[in-house]
C-alpha cells in the first residue's frame, strides 16, 4: 500500500498562543491558527479549496467546518469535520492526503482548536470529565478519565514489571523539552521524585503522569508534492500514514497492553518503506505517561514489555537515541482536547525545517508522529520527511 507515499506535503504550519488564552474564543482560536498557517505558507485564503476541522467541545456546531468556512468567508470544494479524539489530527491529514492525491482538491487548510481551560462553565467542565465511558456499563462504576488509563498502566506493570519511576521519566523528558520552548504552558523542570510525590489521582497515576488542560489552536496547509515547491517555506513531505482502530470502550479492548498503534505504525512504515531505526525524532501522543511507553513498543522502537526500560537514562530526551515530544507534548506544552496532536505535527514540521532553536534535534531528517484517541481506541501514525524520498 504505497499509494500516498510522498504524494503530498505540508507547506504551512503554525500554532496560536497556547496555555491560558482567555481573550480568544474557541472559534477565534481556529481562525487565528488558520490565518497564521496561511501566512506561513505564503498564500491567501482564496487559494484554499479544501477545509477540514476537528469538532470543538466548547463551541460546537452541527456543521463545524462549514461554520469556520463561513466565518472566514472561504468557499471550499471539499469541507469536512472529523472527530476521532486524540487521533483526529492524523486521521484528518490522512483524509486530506487522499483528497489531494486523487485530485478532489489542491490546497487543504486544516485548523483545530479549543479552549477547554478558559471556555467551559463549571457544569460543562464536569460534563467533559464525567461523560467518558459507556453510560450503562462503565459510568456507574465512577471511572475518571485518568482511571481508564490507570487500568492500562496497572496491566503493563503487572505483565512486564514497568515501574512508577519509568512512567515518571516520560513526564520528566516532556517537561525538560518544554523548558526549552518559550511557547509551552508548563516550563519549570521536574524530577522523577516530583512526579512520584505529586498527588495520587488513580493508582498508579499521579497528577504529573497526567497531561494538561489548555486553550490553543494549530493549523497546517497541505498540497500535492508537485505544487509544494512553489510555496514560501521548504515543504515537509508525508512519506507514510496508517491507521488502526480496535474498540470504543476500554472494557471491550482486545488487549490492555498492546494497542492498535501496532497496526497504524506497520501501515505507515510499509507505505514509507522505512522502519523505526530511520526515525530521528518522534512526537508521540502523551495524554498519560503509560501511553507513551506502550506506543514506543507498538511502534517498534523496542520489543513489547521493554518500553519502561527504554525511557530510562535520557534515551527519549534531546541528545538521546530517540528524542520525543520536543515541544513538551500534551504533558507540558498544551492539551486543548481534540487538537492535541496537531501541535505534534507543527513541531515535527518545524523540526524538519530546522527552526527549533535550543530544542532543535540535530540533523533531523525523518519524524514520526502518532496520535491516539478514545481510551487507546483510535490510532494514526504519520512519517514526515525533509526530502521527498
Amino acid at each position, binding site marked *: 500500500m504505497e499509494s500516498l507515499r510522498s504524494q503530498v506535503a505540508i507547506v504551512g504550519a503554525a500554532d496560536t498562543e497556547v496555555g491560558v488564552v482567555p481573550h480568544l474564543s474557541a472559534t477565534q482560536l481556529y481562525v487565528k491558527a488558520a490565518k497564521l498557517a496561511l501566512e506561513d505558507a505564503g498564500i491567501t485564503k482564496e487559494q484554499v479549496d479544501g477545509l477540514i476541522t476537528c469538532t470543538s467541545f466548547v463551541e460546537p456546531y452541527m456543521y463545524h467546518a462549514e461554520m469556520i468556512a463561513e466565518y472566514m468567508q472561504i468557499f471550499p470544494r471539499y469541507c469536512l469535520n472529523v472527530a476521532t479524539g486524540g487521533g483526529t489530527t492524523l486521521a484528518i491529514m490522512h483524509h486530506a492526503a487522499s483528497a489531494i492525491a486523487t485530485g478532489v482538491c489542491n490546497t487543504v487548510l486544516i485548523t483545530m482548536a479549543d479552549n477547554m481551560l478558559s471556555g467551559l462553565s463549571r457544569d460543562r467542565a464536569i460534563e467533559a470529565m464525567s461523560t467518558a465511558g459507556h453510560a450503562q456499563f462503565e459510568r*456507574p*462504576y*465512577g*471511572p475518571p478519565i485518568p482511571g481508564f488509563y490507570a487500568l492500562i498502566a496497572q496491566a503493563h506493570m503487572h505483565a512486564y514489571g514497568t515501574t512508577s519511576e519509568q512512567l515518571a521519566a516520560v513526564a520528566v523528558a516532556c517537561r525538560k523539552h518544554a523548558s526549552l520552548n518559550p511557547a509551552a504552558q508548563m516550563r519549570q523542570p521536574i524530577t522523577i521524585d516530583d512526579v512520584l510525590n505529586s498527588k495520587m489521582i488513580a493508582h498508579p497515576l499521579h497528577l504529573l503522569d497526567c497531561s494538561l488542560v489548555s486553550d490553543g489552536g494549530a493549523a497546517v496547509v497541505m498540497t500535492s508534492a508537485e505544487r509544494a515547491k512553489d510555496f514560501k517555506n521548504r515543504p515537509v513531505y508525508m512519506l507514510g500514514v496508517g491507521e488502526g482502530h480496535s474498540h470504543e470502550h476500554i*472494557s471491550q479492548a482486545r488487549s490492555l497492553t498492546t494497542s492498535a498503534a501496532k497496526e497504524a505504525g506497520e501501515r505507515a512504515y510499509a507505505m514509507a518503506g522505512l522502519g523505526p531505526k530511520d526515525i530521528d525524532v518522534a512526537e508521540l501522543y502523551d495524554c498519560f505517561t503509560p501511553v507513551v511507553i506502550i506506543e514506543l513498543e507498538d511502534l517498534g522502537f523496542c520489543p513489547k514489555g521493554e518500553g519502561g526500560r527504554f525511557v530510562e537514562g535520557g534515551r527519549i530526551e534531546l541528545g538521546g537515541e530517540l528524542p520525543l515530544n520536543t515541544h513538551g507534548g500534551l504533558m507540558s506544552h498544551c492539551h486543548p482536547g481534540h487538537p492535541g496532536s496537531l501541535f505534534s505535527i507543527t513541531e515535527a514540521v518545524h523540526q524538519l525545517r530546522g527552526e527549533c532553536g535550543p530544542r532543535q534535534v540535530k540533523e533531523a531528517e525523518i519524524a514520526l508522529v502518532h496520535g491516539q484517541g478514545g481510551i487507546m481506541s483510535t490510532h494514526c501514525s504519520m512519517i514526515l520527511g525533509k526530502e521527498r524520498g
Partner: protein
Amino acid sequence: MAAPASKPVPVPTRETQPYWEGCKQHELRIQKCPACGHHQFYPRLYCTACMSDRVEWVKASGRGKVLSFTIVYRPVTQAFAADVPYVVALITLDEGPQLMSNVVGCPPEKVQIGMPVEVTFEDWTEDISVPKFKPV
C-alpha cells in the same frame, strides 16, 4: 458503596433490558450463541464470533478474575466523593467476556490482578441493581 440519586443510574434500552432485568433478580446474564457456543457481553443483536442472530440469554456463573484495576483517589464527580478510595476494575468472567465493575468487600490495597472474584449486587433503585464483584 451507597447509591445516592446523583450517581449515573443506568437507563436500560430494549437491547439491554434482559440484562438489567436479570440484575434486578440478582442474576448476572450474558449472551450465548447456540450456533458456535460463544459468550458475549455487552448485549448485541448478533454473535460477534459467527454473526448468527440467534443469540440467547444465559445465567453466567458470576465468577471471574481481575484483569486490571485502579484505586481512584480523585472521584469522577461529587456523586462518588464519599466512596474514595474506590476500586474500578476490569473483570474477565469465567465464560470469557470482560466487563467493568467495582471490586468491593475488601480494602482497596488488597485487590490484585488475577484475583478470583464473584458477583454481588447493589440495589440502586426499585428497578436497577448494579453488579459489583467481591473476593471469592
